[in-house]
Each structure stands twice: as C-alpha cells, then as structure tokens.
C-alpha cells in the first residue's frame, strides 16, 4: 500500500479494494499502525480492536479472492463513538460509571455497519454521556485537535472527528444532541451530518436526551457521508421513535449543480459572540455558492436566542430521567454501602463526573414539583416556537446556511471553568436538534490555521438536498483536501 493511500476517501479505497490493488487486511493493518503512531499525541480512541479488525478484514479478503463483488463500504476500516453498543466490546460512554460495561447486544447501527462489511477498528473518546462541547469531560483521556495539539477537538464526538481528520479511520459514527457531530466536525475540518430525528435508529445508543439524540456519520468528504447514510438510515422497529420513511439512495443527490436553489441566511446566527474572522470565512463561502448560481438572501429565525435556555432545560430534564437507571444494581459501577439508599448515592456520586452531575441537578430541578410548568413545560412551548420559525423559513428556502460554530476550536481549559459560557457557544447548533431537522457541517476555510465549518440546514428528511449543496460546494473548493500538518509529519516518519 502506497504512502498517502490512508488519506483516501471511502469511495477511493473501495476502488483500490475492488481492483485488488490492496487487500482489506493490508488496509486495516495500515490504519492500526497509524493509530499506534498517532495515539500518544491524539488520544481519539478509548479502545482499539486490533485482532477483531484483522479477522474481519481477512473475511472480506476471502470473499474478494473468491471473486465476490464488494459493496461500497465492504472492507473499509471505521470506528464508532463509545456510546453505541457493541456486543462483547466494552462501551463506556466516556464514564467511570460504565468502565466495565460489556453490552450483551449490538446497537442497530452496529448491526447495519457489520452487515455492510465494514471493519470496526475501535471505540472513540467522547464527553461523558455526550455532555460537553470539547471532549474535556471524558473520564478517560483528553483528545487533542490534530490541527494544533493545544486546542480541543470539539465535542462531544471529539474522538470521532479526530479519528477521521487524522486518518485514523476511514469514517466514523458520532451522535448529536445539541451539535455533538457538527461542532467537532467543524473544529477538525471534516464533514459531519446530523440526520433528521428518527432517520437513524437510536436502538443501542446510550441515551442522553432521547427527544434530541441522533446518530450520524463523520467523513472525509460529502460522498463518503452519503454512502454511510445509505448504510445506517432507515426505519427500525426496535426504536419506537424511528420514522418509517422511504429511504433514498443518498448518492443520487451528489450533483455539481445548485443553480436556482434558494438559500436563506438567518441573521440571528451572526449575533454577539461570533468571531468576525469566522463570519468573513462563511461570507466568502456564501459568495462561492452565489457564483455557482444559488439565490441567496437574508432571513430571520426570531426565536433563536431562546434556543439555548430551552435546550438546556429540555436536554437536562431528559438526561436526569435517562440517567436514573445508573443505580449500581444491574450493570455499571457500584460503590459499596451498608444500606441500599447509601449504595445508590455513593454509586452515582463516585460514578458520574462533574458536568454530568451538574446536568442531572439542573434537570431534576426543572422537573421537580412546583417548577415543572415554569421550566420544563415552558421550554417545550418555546421549542414549538423555534420549530415554527424553521417551518416558515422553509416555505421560502430550500436550505438555510450559517457558521457551524461561532468560533474555531478553543484551547484546553479556556471554557471549562464557566459552564454557561460553554453552553452559549452552542447557539448555532442546538436550534436544529430542537426542531428535529437535518444539518450538515462541511469544511469552509481556516481562521489562524484552524478549520471552520459551514452548516447547511434542511427540511425534515431533506438530507439529499443538503448533500447536493454540500457536494457542489466541495467540488468547487479545496478545503476538504487539506490535512493537518502533524499528520503529514507522522506520515513522513512512518515511511522512512
């Protein structure tokens, strides 16, 4: 396998495999070597499944040897955020609480990727229980941004973004409750899709906020993203919130043409707190789309500023309920105590980290007697208003466009002391989860050497439209082909 092959996209790797230029075993071994090279610096992985991955690859190679035709993801090494259940493989959710949890079953996405013939390289670091925007809340490790090791990778799917950005995996799966796929994708310069709520099964995804959580792919380019969506999307009877819809072939939308498409720019996404350099970068991206024939105009989503409080009340209320199950009885961490109430309390106090406890506290308060109407119910009503903002905007526009995050990646420790400041940086991503619509982040330039992302938002189940605009943008820009310099250096080291 040639040096540089590891940077190739899923569809390019598929060609190499199909033409027997490389074997899946060679490809998998190359990824494993690279993981060993880079992990001391990056710490994207919580677990690497070397033997299992090579065994899976050998199986694909047997099929190739017998003249079998490979489907598009077959033999491609990938990795999953550690909140998706993998039978027999520890799934920690980034928490001490689940440090020994070995799921007795697979998540539906795990089964679907297995059925697609992919190779599972390992499980990826994340903020504990997916609560965070920097992956600093992981119980296990501090994942670093390959573009600059002093900076966070974003979160909560920080490991999933870094693994793809640094070519430690062909693609990855993350989950997004308030931006947890899109924001790290933006910070690390990769493509990240948060699908429509209900498009991808949540069965086997460890719950954070059930009405907002959604699994989606992080990839090196838009085509790869559509290929992975083809494999994971679709109705699942095991998830009662999974929507029965006619799943399209998402690659059909990959056309280099956006002439006449109407793109709206919500002015509220350029408010206080947005880095002027980011705004400038996105402006230049908008100009590119105008030059390609899109009709762009400004619009308004008037309730945007209310999205942060509504989100943090709803998400924490659901979390406090979902995380009530961690009681030290059936699985997970247990602290010893004389009586059962003491056991519950010690287990939860020792097993959860500070951010998880903070959110359980806030959510329990919002749901507690006397405050339910003022906080939780109020937030759900505001959620309706936010959703209606989008409904109205989509009467006029095919797609809405904004920066994915108000700033590029920040330094470790910069925001962790002030939870509210960390929450406020989610202003461009949380409204999308409240409305349940799909949104994609694509690489759109650099500010001081760090990547920035452009977010495209669409109508429910209009992932195809997002892929079309994203693909057209990608075909006419080169941001997605640029690689972090640290990975170049390590590549050079490896080839000596």
């Amino acid at each position: 396998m040639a040096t540089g092959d590891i940077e190739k996209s899923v569809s390019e790797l598929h060609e190499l495999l199909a033409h027997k230029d490389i074997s899946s075993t060679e490809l998998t071994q190359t990824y494993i070597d690279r993981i060993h090279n880079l992990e001391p610096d990056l710490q994207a992985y919580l677990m690497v499944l070397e033997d299992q991955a090579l065994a899976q690859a050998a199986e694909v190679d047997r099929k190739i040897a017998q003249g079998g035709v490979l489907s598009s993801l077959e033999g491609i090494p990938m990795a999953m955020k550690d909140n998706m259940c993998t039978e027999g493989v520890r799934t920690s959710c980034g928490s001490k609480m689940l440090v020994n949890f070995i799921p007795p079953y697979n998540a539906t996405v795990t089964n679907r990727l297995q059925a697609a013939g992919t190779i599972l390289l390992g499980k990826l670091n994340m903020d504990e229980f997916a609560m965070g925007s920097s992956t600093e809340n992981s119980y296990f490790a501090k994942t670093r941004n390959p573009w600059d090791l002093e900076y966070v990778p974003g979160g909560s799917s920080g490991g999933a973004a870094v693994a793809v950005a640094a070519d430690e995996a062909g693609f990855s799966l993350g989950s997004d409750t308030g931006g947890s796929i899109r924001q790290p994708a933006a910070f690390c310069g990769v493509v990240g899709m948060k699908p429509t709520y209900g498009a991808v099964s949540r069965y086997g995804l460890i719950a954070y906020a059930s009405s907002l959580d959604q699994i989606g792919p992080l990839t090196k380019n838009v085509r790869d993203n559509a290929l992975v969506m083809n494999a994971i999307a679709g109705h699942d009877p095991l998830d009662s919130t999974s929507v029965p819809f006619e799943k399209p072939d998402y690659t059909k939308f990959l056309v280099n043409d956006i002439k006449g498409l109407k793109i709206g720019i919500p002015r509220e996404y350029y408010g206080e707190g947005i880095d002027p350099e980011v705004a400038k970068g996105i402006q230049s991206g908008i100009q590119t789309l105008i030059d390609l024939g899109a009709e762009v105009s400004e619009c308004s989503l008037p309730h945007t500023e209310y999205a942060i409080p509504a989100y943090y009340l709803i998400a924490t209320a659901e979390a406090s309920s979902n995380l009530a199950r961690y009681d030290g009885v059936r699985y997970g961490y247990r602290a010893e105590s004389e009586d059962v109430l003491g056991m519950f309390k010690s287990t939860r106090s020792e097993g959860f980290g500070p951010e998880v406890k903070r959110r359980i506290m806030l959510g329990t308060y919002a749901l507690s007697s006397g405050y339910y109407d003022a906080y939780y119910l109020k937030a759900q009503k505001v959620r309706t208003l936010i959703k209606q903002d989008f409904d109205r905007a989509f009467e006029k526009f095919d797609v809405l466009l904004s920066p994915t995050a108000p700033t590029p990646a920040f330094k470790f420790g910069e925001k962790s002391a002030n939870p509210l400041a960390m929450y406020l940086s989610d202003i461009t991503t949380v409204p999308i989860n409240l409305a349940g619509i799909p949104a994609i982040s694509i690489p759109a330039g650099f500010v001081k050497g760090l990547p920035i992302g452009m977010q495209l938002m669409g109508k429910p189940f209009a992932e195809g439209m997002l892929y079309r605009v994203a693909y057209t943008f990608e075909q006419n820009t080169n941001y997605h082909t640029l690689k972090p310099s640290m990975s170049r250096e390590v590549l050079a080291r490896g080839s000596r």
Partner: protein
Amino acid sequence: MKISREDVEYVAALARLELTEQETQEYTEQLNSILDYAAMLERLDTSDVVPTAHAVPLHNVLREDQVRPSINHDKALRNAPDGEEGFFRVPKIV
C-alpha cells in the same frame, strides 16, 4: 438568587447524589447563573402555544404481541456488579 443552598441539597437528594461541601457551593452558584439566564424565556407569551415533546411525533406505535427470542438470563446478568443464583444482589433494603 433563585436557588438556595437548601434547594440544592433537596434536589441532590431527589437525584440520589451525595454532594461534597464544595460541590454544593459550586452547583448553587452555577445553577443560579444558568437559571438567571433561562429567565429570558419568561419574556415570551406562550399561553396559546402547544408544547413540543418530539419534533417528529409518531402516535400509537404498536406491534403484534408475538413471542420472540430475547437476551437470556445469563447474558442479562453478566454485567451485574453483584449477582447470585440468577438474581441481582443489593444491600439490605428494610
């Protein structure tokens, strides 16, 4: 201050959390600052607005009541911190 120290202690008890002195202090401050911020929701008149629980609501998701294979006893207990003879063991309750 919307939330007092006592409120925080009460909520911690509801959530089955045992907070240290420092955590109690920190959470009192932080929850207050978060809820002060959330107070902006009061500015919106929502008296005629229907709450949204799910963005893509599905109603009455039903299935046939069929017997199907499920995770067996042994597998279900394998992650138990303390199990005995097919049961979960917990400290004395009464």
